[in-house]
């Protein structure tokens, strides 16, 4: 694999502008699609992530059959550490997705505009100067290691990766022993409005971007960046039943939160808590049912909308037919009417108009922005992060997962997930663990979860993600430390790296932007002086969105 003289990893999202322009590089380059060289390293990859993308085309017949819909497109995003996925299918599926984007009629676009929340306009900011990173060892992805390579960064994106890539003159070059993609904290509460934490008015369509303080002190951000964490996912209200739409933001000290946002609606969050309902077991069960009922509600809304679509189409056709029939028969109708009027006059009786009847136009289901979001979640367009710890709650979650096959559920917390490892693996439910540091006690986390939980789940084939748990705004800083604790208790370093980069990127649909060091990705890089997750290793520099934000 390393024998390839020059390797340019071509990302799906690569734009013409991000392809290296230097003819020397271009000529030597062997343009390869990411999956093409994947089998070479598939042997090293544990079984858990050796399969197709969860919720993607291989997630089940239901999703696979919904041609042209979002799930297909999303499932096909560069799939981090899933090298075994059907390679042949991918480019095709990608083409389909592209066609879908371009070949949409105006009406479709209009519909889409109305249905989906408008992304916030981000004012264009001047991009930083180009940078080059010379790495002795580069983790393109956890399962793909290159040695002695240079990463070229232009316009905030990765422009070239290769052994013979040379930085153009005048471009600053950084040296590092080990380089990885920036870590993503899948579960944070950084910069979150304290009032939003427990606000019970939060509904599914509340967005986390509104809850984040864009003017958070940059020194906090630098503090977290020094740990190697470059992005974080926040949920509008982490303590309420329904936490609204989550967002993935960056720790960029020079930019406002929404300027550096990676996603403004990356997930829907639900929280099951045995704190609610108190001692009454039925109360607790009812609460769990109510929270998970949101998915059922979204599904019902989706059905209503589909039903309406069909009814409307049928009605429109019937009316059009009727219209044609009437237009054709108008002359006769007029004659008949005149005749009837004359007859009536002759007979001295009252003239009666014929009564016109037609089917009523079907009524659209009442628009509800919250149910719109729930419908997206139930349809798998939006991952649903469910915080649950106890066995009872996890069992309820698994039931929901079986019922709503399209929904992409993510179990967060999962202190007692060990007992369901097999089922979780079977249903392809990723588990977002927060190996709790002492002092931030989450119910049952230590007694039944403990530090070895990640390794145990991984062993059973469950896809494990790591997050800081959002117990404290600054907890994100300790995420790499928590990951090394998990490594110390049996999790493979490769899996730990995946749990902080490719997996959260894929689960939260931002794999086309971050999570790996591939061409076209936005440049979030961490430069280490040794292997990540080793206690003696230091983060030397951090590049966030192409800008050098931490420098030794």
């Amino acid at each position: 694999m390393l024998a390839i003289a020059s390797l340019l990893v071509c990302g799906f999202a690569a734009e013409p502008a991000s392809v290296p322009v230097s003819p020397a590089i271009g000529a030597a380059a062997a343009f390869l699609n990411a999956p093409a060289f994947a089998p070479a390293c598939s042997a090293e990859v544990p079984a858990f992530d050796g399969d197709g993308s969860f919720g993607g085309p291989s997630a089940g017949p239901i999703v696979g059959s919904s041609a042209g819909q979002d799930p297909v497109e999303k499932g096909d995003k560069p799939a981090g550490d899933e090298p075994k996925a059907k390679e042949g299918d991918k480019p095709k599926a990608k083409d389909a997705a592209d066609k879908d984007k371009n070949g949409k009629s105006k009406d479709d676009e209009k519909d889409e505009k109305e249905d989906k929340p408008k992304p916030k306009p981000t004012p264009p900011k001047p991009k930083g100067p180009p940078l080059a990173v010379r790495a002795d060892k580069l983790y393109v992805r956890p399962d793909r290691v290159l040695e002695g390579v240079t990463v070229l960064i232009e316009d905030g994106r990765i422009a070239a990766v290769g052994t013979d890539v040379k930085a153009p003159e005048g471009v600053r070059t950084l040296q590092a022993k080990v380089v990885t993609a920036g870590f993503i904290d899948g579960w944070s509460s950084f910069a979150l409005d304290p009032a939003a934490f427990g606000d019970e008015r939060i509904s599914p369509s509340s967005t986390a971007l509104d809850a984040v303080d864009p003017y958070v002190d940059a020194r906090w951000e630098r503090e977290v960046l020094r740990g190697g964490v470059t992005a974080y996912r926040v949920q509008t209200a982490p303590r309420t039943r329904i936490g609204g739409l989550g967002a993935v933001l960056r720790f960029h000290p020079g930019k406002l939160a929404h300027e550096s946002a990676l996603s403004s609606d990356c997930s829907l969050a639900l929280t099951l808590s045995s704190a609610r309902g108190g001692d009454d077991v039925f109360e607790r069960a009812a609460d769990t049912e109510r929270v998970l009922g949101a998915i059922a509600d979204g599904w019902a809304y989706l059905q209503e909308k589909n039903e309406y679509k069909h009814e409307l189409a049928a009605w429109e056709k019937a009316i059009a037919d009727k219209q044609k029939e009437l237009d054709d028969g108008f002359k006769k109708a007029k004659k008949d009417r005149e005749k009837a009027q004359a007859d009536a006059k002759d007979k001295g009786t009252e003239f009666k108009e014929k009564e016109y009847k037609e089917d009523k136009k079907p009524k659209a289901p009442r628009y509800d922005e919250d149910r719109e979001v729930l419908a997206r979640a139930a349809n798998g367009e939006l991952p649903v992060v469910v915080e649950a710890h106890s066995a009872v709650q996890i069992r309820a979650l698994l039931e929901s997962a079986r019922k709503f096959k399209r929904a992409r559920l993510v179990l967060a917390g999962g202190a007692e997930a060990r007992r369901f490892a097999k089922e979780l693996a079977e249903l392809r439910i990723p588990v977002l663990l927060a190996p709790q540091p002492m002092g931030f006690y989450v119910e049952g986390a230590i007694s039944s979860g403990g530090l070895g939980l990640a390794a145990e789940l991984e062993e059973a084939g469950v896809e494990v993600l790591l997050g800081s748990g959002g117990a404290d705004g600054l907890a994100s800083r300790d995420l790499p430390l928590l990951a090394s604790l998990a490594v110390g208790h049996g999790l493979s370093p490769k899996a730990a790296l995946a749990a902080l980069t490719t997996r959260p990127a894929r689960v939260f649909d931002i794999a086309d932007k971050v999570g790996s060091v591939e061409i076209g990705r936005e440049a979030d890089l961490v430069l280490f002086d040794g292997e990540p997750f080793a206690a003696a290793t230091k983060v030397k520099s951090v590049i966030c969105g192409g800008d050098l934000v931490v420098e030794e």
Partner: protein
Amino acid sequence: MKPTQTTYVRVAALRTSVAAAALFLCSDAALADGKLAIKAGKIVTAPNAPVIEKGVIVIENGRITAVGKEKDVKIPWDAPVIDAPKATAFPGYVEAHSARGMDRPNESPDIIIPFLTVRDSIDPVNFYFEDCLRSGITTINVQQGNDCIVAAQGMVVRPVGLTIDEMAVKIPSGIKMSAAARRGASAPTQAQALRRVFSDLRRYLDQLVQDKKDGSDRSRREALYQGRDLEGDKAKGRAMEGAAWTVKGLELIPRGEVDEKQEPLLALVEGKMPAFVWCARPADVHVAIEVARDNGFLAKTTLVIDASCWKAADAIAAAKVPVVLQGSVLHLEPDPLTGKEIETFVPKVLHDKKIPFALSSANSSNQSLWYQAALCVGHGLPRAAALEAVTSAPAKILGLDKRVGSLEVGKDGNVLLLSGDPLSVTTWVERVVIEGKDVYDRSKDVRVQHLLGGKQPANTAAMNGEMLDPSKVCCDGSDEKAHAKHLEEQRRAKDKGEGEDAKPADKKDGDKKDGEKKDDSHDGHNHDGAGEHREGARQ
């Protein structure tokens, strides 16, 4: 009742009854017709204009017809003259946003009430308006609703008149909205609620058009079926305008059919109504600008901001919206790491970023506009910029820059006669003329006279119910030196007499206090006892 009412008579004598009737019909009508000339030692026509020494202002039918040196301006023979050789004439201050002067502001959270107006809540005899005259404020935008989602329409008034119509200058001044979390809510739900107001409006209008189309189509088919001739009776309507979005086919809807609760919001989206958006935190500024831009009323938007919003100055400058700074001009915040207090002088930030801004009275008479402007100068803002922030800038924000904010020909005759520099703490507002009407005279201001221990007006009672000693009656306020001399004498007399007089009075007070204390402690004991008793009973 305002004591200043009595002073109207002199000027109002020239008013015809016909004009008086017209006054109530149109808010644009001048407060007073007839003429008035003001001779002042100095005239400052605008913050950065050269001072006119020994000048004259002539006001006819409420508008200024001439300003200039005494020798250059001819005073009409029939104009009454206010002669103030020691005074400085200055344009009346303009308050761009005030939540005072109302009987009961509607500050219930969760409400969306763009169809209501403060007109129904303004209380013409509210003490606030009287106080405005004392501090030289002649134009006020009364606008409430910081705690709502979409609050009522505000209105611009002058602080004189016994009815709303008499006070009205501009109706409405704009719709008030809040981007800041209302009571019991958090920022995301507020932003969501605000966005929903406009997405609901859009859906409502869409539905309106759709229903119309469906209905009319059906009637056409019915006519075809029955063989009747079609009668194309096109409903009158107007195509929707809007910078951000429009609903196609709204011309089918006679505008009268649009729900009056939604109609003001439609006016907003069509760019026909100004908006005032309250922002308590810098994050709110982004929400406010986003909602205004997405719904096409950014050009008509004014942000009412808290001092903390200086952090979002770049966003405000980029959006090119003016702001009203509410509350303190200083923002204090502890450094999150060191705990050390960081002080930011906000008007300077706004000035440096070239953001048009108006100061406001912090909803308090003690920190009135002139005082805020003086504070700004004290913190290093250029004098002209500070004065503009209480005159021409708020006038522009209210869309009244052709009427108020400076003393120029054609503008309203809103003139303050000050005893000195507008920004000096020793300066008094001696007289106020609003639209050619002499509405305030400090020498006849009962409350001021009383508060200063000054002249006791005839037939009025002092606070304690006793008449003041007539021997202590002071000068009439026009002769400063005599006044100062008199006060000096009073103080000396007081110092002298303190030795003998003060003691008995103190003792008397002390006795009374002691007695009260005793009563208190006695009561307290009783309560305690009762408590013990109850506790005992429970046990």
